[in-house]
């Protein structure tokens, strides 16, 4: 768009056409006070705070030329009334006056009116100190009010809008920012206005109240203390807080957070601006779900089992036990008798050292997660074909095609829902395909709904159509299994594929063409897509490769995996089949399920669990841990697995340590230490290094495996940055990703924070001073994609009428959510079935149903949901009381459904 030059208070500014006067003035360093305007929301002109005088060059109606005065300057025709700067777009030659007496009079008047019924309880208000109403009243308001203090309207306060947000209607200035955020950005239109006149108020329209995963953001943008967070209620005054930059590890988005600490205690969690990741928003899981840091039941000292009881010991003692036992087991049974599982929320440093030590000890039995029937092999596609450097979803709009397949971003990676929705709002094409409706679908430009039989057909149909439009098959030809896939595609007709997925041939062709010809194309897939088997995601990978743009900015595949650093875990080589950087290992180790089997057979004797709790979910794991000779549990809490542990090592939480994390787009971000570790807990990487050091000190030899190849010198890391440097040097693809480089990546936007000049957006977000992270250079761009097309689909043990799918929930039984306000939002276990299926069996919500599969059966309350397709049962396996492993035969399971009839 062309630029427009205008004059604001005598200062000439040039801004893109379409900019409004408030933003234009801000670029010139002139603050026009606003309340209802927010740069991320559509202007509505509700509060009138931004009134200014506006004039435009006078045009001679006859000649259509600007009228010039005696000096040859254009004559400016001032508009007769003040204009709202937030809704008035700039025009060439416009003259704006923001400081005239007329404007000041209006500003004072508006503020006096806004304060007529304001309770003036700033001393007890949580917004006090970062409140735009305070700031603007000090800067632009009248010194006194002519209204009677005793004539204020009073409401009962506060009103609880759900368990997370409190509304104080007396303080509300009815700017509508919260309503508009929910409508425009979060797509949860649950807030609204009610009543009129002096009783005009904000209400929640949903049941349960304020039912949104993004509700916390309204407390940031509310320009007064009307909406406040229950989590920060009367905890501290904002000026007492010290802001510490960390990264959220609760999902693979990796939102930038600010932990606001007072005296080393966590007071609240705020977003930290990063336009490319979370902009200025975070989800409620990130905002409220970090209370685990201060949970009273955190482990504080190492524990060692003595006479059947775990007793507190010093680190030296615990490390000695670990080193002795590992040495002994390795000497007797070889390195393969050791195994380790790490959690996907650990940092890259932890994960890298974890696999390094185990591999040095001669074990390849390393995996992420806990295994179980639904476990899937590590997702390589989302790594090889991830979007390239400079990827920034916030810039994408028209010209972009995003294909979201089998994913529920709102639950799996909440912030991605906002980002993807934003792309559609800016004119991008958002195609959402899946077995069942998701919230993102409401924002989609095209929705594809298929039956389970149709999903592979849909993707293959797209691929087949794409093959007709693209000749960029050079990379594909080199990949193992491509010939077979291609041959298979040639055997089916596009017509059949289209029928199978419920689209037309033209529809498939059009979609494939759009995808290939777009200036940017992205594919996002989640659990549902992965659970169909590798064939589905492989076809998506082929489709991406056909676009020929893989590995460039904003082009690629984003895989939504469970856990905050799941991509990092794969890249650091915490997997049995490959080392760091997708380098295949000569010898393949055991995956988690293999480890459980081997442990029960006595082949694996020592199991090291770092940040995973398999015993809570898997009966096989309990048996395996029982059978194992030596179990190390390294965790924040005394988990169910700790019952089987011989040594328990307390780890420091994400807030208590430094680290880097790789998000789903392969953006590496640095998280800082916010407070001292609880008790004697230590960061995981330090624990691994300490174990290595202790191993190096063990005097006895290594038996038939030779001496322990670990030396004290090689394992003396002083700080996390040392490990970071080693990762940069050793892990393919991570060259140059040092701590210094990560910190030097800029401030991630133009927001400003509370003490900046942008006082009218106060309290909304925090400047990012720690860098916005680096997207790793694409692995695929070198033309060395190392993927294999296996063509495998998920098989079932037997045929039964219903298809059981795991449902990922944002608020689940994750032990990191303990002690948080989210607890009341975590549902009890249920199996969701469609209304039709329920009617057939006369099942009502709350009735107990029996699910029977080839593996076993389970009884669970049913929940009848309108948006579950017939024939499908959704089981939220992440909930603490859902033991999905009891009936699952694989990532998907065929089951019988029956109502439990009592008496």
């Amino acid at each position, binding site marked *: 768009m062309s630029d427009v030059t205008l004059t604001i208070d005598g200062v000439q500014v040039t801004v893109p056409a379409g900019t409004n006067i408030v933003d234009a003035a801000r670029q010139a360093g002139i603050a026009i006070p606003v309340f209802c305007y927010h740069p991320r929301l559509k202007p509505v002109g509700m509060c009138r705070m931004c009134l200014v005088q506006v004039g435009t060059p006078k045009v001679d109606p006859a000649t259509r030329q600007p009228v010039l005065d005696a000096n040859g300057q254009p004559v400016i025709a001032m508009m007769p009334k003040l204009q709202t700067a937030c809704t008035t777009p700039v025009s060439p030659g416009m003259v704006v006056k923001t400081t005239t007496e007329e404007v000041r009079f209006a500003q004072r008047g508006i503020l006096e009116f806004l304060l007529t019924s304001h309770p*003036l*309880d700033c*001393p*007890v208000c949580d917004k*006090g100190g970062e409140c735009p109403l305070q700031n603007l009243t000090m800067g632009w308001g009248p010194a006194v009010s002519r209204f009677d*203090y005793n004539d204020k309207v009073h409401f009962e*306060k*506060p009103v609880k809008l759900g368990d997370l947000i409190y509304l104080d209607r007396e303080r509300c200035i009815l700017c509508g920012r919260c309503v508009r955020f929910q409508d425009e950005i979060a797509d949860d239109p649950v807030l609204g206005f009610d009543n009129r006149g002096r009783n005009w108020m904000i209400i929640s329209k949903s049941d349960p109240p304020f039912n949104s995963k993004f509700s916390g953001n309204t407390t940031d943008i509310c320009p007064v203390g009307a909406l406040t967070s229950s989590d920060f*209620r*009367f*905890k*501290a*005054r904002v*000026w*007492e807080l010290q802001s510490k930059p960390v990264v959220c590890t609760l999902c693979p988005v990796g939102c930038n957070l600010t932990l606001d600490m007072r005296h080393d205690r966590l007071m609240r969690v705020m977003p930290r601006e990063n336009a490319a990741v979370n902009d200025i928003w975070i989800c409620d899981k990130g905002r409220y779900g970090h209370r685990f840091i201060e949970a009273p039941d955190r482990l504080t000292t190492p524990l060692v089992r003595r006479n059947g009881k775990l007793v507190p010991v010093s680190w030296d003692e615990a490390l000695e036990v670990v080193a002795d036992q590992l040495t002994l087991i390795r000497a007797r049974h070889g390195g393969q008798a050791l195994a380790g599982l790490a959690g996907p929320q650990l940092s890259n440093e932890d994960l890298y050292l974890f696999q390094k030590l185990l591999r040095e000890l001669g074990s390849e039995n390393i995996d992420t997660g806990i295994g179980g029937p639904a476990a899937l092999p590590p997702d390589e596609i989302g790594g090889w074909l991830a979007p390239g450097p400079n990827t920034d979803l916030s810039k994408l709009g028209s010209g972009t095609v995003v294909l979201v397949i089998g994913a529920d971003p709102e639950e799996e990676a909440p912030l991605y829902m906002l980002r993807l929705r934003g792309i559609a709002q800016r004119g991008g094409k958002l195609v959402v395909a899946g077995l069942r409706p998701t919230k993102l679908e409401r924002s989609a430009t095209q929705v594809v709904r298929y039956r389970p039989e149709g999903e592979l057909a849909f993707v293959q149909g797209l691929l087949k159509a794409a093959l007709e439009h693209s000749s960029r098959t050079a990379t594909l030809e080199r990949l193992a299994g491509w010939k077979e896939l291609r041959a298979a595609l040639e055997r089916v007709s596009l017509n059949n594929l289209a029928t199978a997925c419920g689209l037309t041939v033209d529809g498939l062709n059009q979609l494939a063409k759009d995808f290939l010809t777009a200036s940017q194309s992205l594919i996002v897939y989640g659990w549902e897509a992965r659970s169909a088997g590798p064939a589905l995601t492989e076809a998506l990978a082929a489709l991406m490769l056909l676009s020929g743009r893989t590995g460039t900015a904003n082009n690629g595949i984003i895989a939504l995996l469970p856990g905050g650093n799941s991509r990092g875990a794969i890249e650091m080589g915490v997997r049995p089949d490959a080392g760091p950087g997708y380098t295949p290992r000569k010898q393949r180790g055991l995956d988690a399920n293999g480890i459980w089997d081997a442990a029960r057979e006595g082949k694996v004797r020592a199991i090291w669990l770092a940040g995973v709790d398999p015993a809570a979910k898997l009966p096989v794991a309990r048996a395996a841990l029982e059978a194992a000779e030596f179990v190390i549990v390294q965790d924040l809490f005394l988990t169910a697995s700790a019952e089987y542990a011989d040594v328990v090592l307390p780890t420091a939480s994400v807030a208590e340590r430094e680290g880097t994390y790789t998000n789903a787009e392969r953006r590496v971000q640095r998280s800082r230490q916010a407070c001292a570790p609880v008790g004697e807990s230590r960061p995981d990487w330090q624990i691994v290094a300490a174990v290595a050091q202790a191993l190096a000190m063990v005097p006895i030899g290594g038996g038939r495996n030779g001496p322990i190849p670990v030396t004290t010198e090689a394992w003396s890391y002083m700080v996390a940055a040392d490990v970071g440097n080693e990762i940069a040097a050793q892990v393919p693809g991570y060259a140059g990703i040092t701590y210094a480089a990560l910190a030097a990546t800029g401030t991630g936007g133009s927001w400003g924070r509370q003490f900046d000049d942008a006082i009218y957006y106060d309290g909304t977000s925090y400047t990012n001073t720690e860098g916005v992270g680096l997207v790793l250079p694409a692995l695929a761009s070198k033309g060395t994609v190392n993927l294999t097309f296996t063509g495998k689909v998920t098989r079932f043990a037997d045929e039964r009428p219903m298809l059981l799918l795991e449902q990922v929930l944002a608020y689940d039984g994750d032990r990191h959510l303990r002690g948080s306000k989210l607890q009341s939002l975590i549902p009890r276990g249920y199996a969701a079935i469609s209304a039709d299926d329920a009617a057939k069996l006369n099942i009502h919500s709350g009735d107990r149903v029996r699910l029977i599969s080839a593996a076993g059966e389970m009884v669970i309350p049913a929940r009848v949901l309108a948006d579950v397709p017939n024939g499908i049962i959704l089981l939220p396996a992440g909930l603490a009381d859902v033991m999905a492993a009891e009936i699952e035969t694989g990532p998907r399971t065929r089951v019988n459904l029956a109502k439990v009839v009592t008496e």
Partner: protein
Amino acid sequence: MIRELVKGLGTTLRYMFKRPVTVQYPEVKRPVRERFRGRHELKRFANGQERCIGCALCAAACPADAILVIPAENDPANPRSPGERYAAVYEINMLRCIFCGYCEDACPTNAIVLEHQYELSFYDRRAAIYTKEMLLVPPDKGHGEPPPILQQLNRQPSPPAKIDL
């Protein structure tokens, strides 16, 4: 030499018959001025409720960083102070305090007042931290008036302090 001795002793003798200007502290305590700034007290309203609403403005105003306030939410059925918030923890470190009275000025409810007690000595540093229990006046010592200083200056207290005026 004798002369000097006699002169000196004479002075001593003269003063023996004069009224002494010193007082026999601690047996005798000198009164202090009305606006003397001594040890703080946390005041109450006439109905016995705490005046302090836990806003921590005193802590923000304090140049010596002597005050710690940790607020909490009032139980609506049994509120300790008017409104939603009260100070769960209120501590003043008397070793840090410079008795400037800024806290008193900052307080919107006139809860913290520097009173006339000046006997502050401690055997250890911990004892110098006055807790809320030590600072709070007994329930029957509440009052509804703004402190004299504000009356003198003819200033109106800020709205929350007007609650029971």
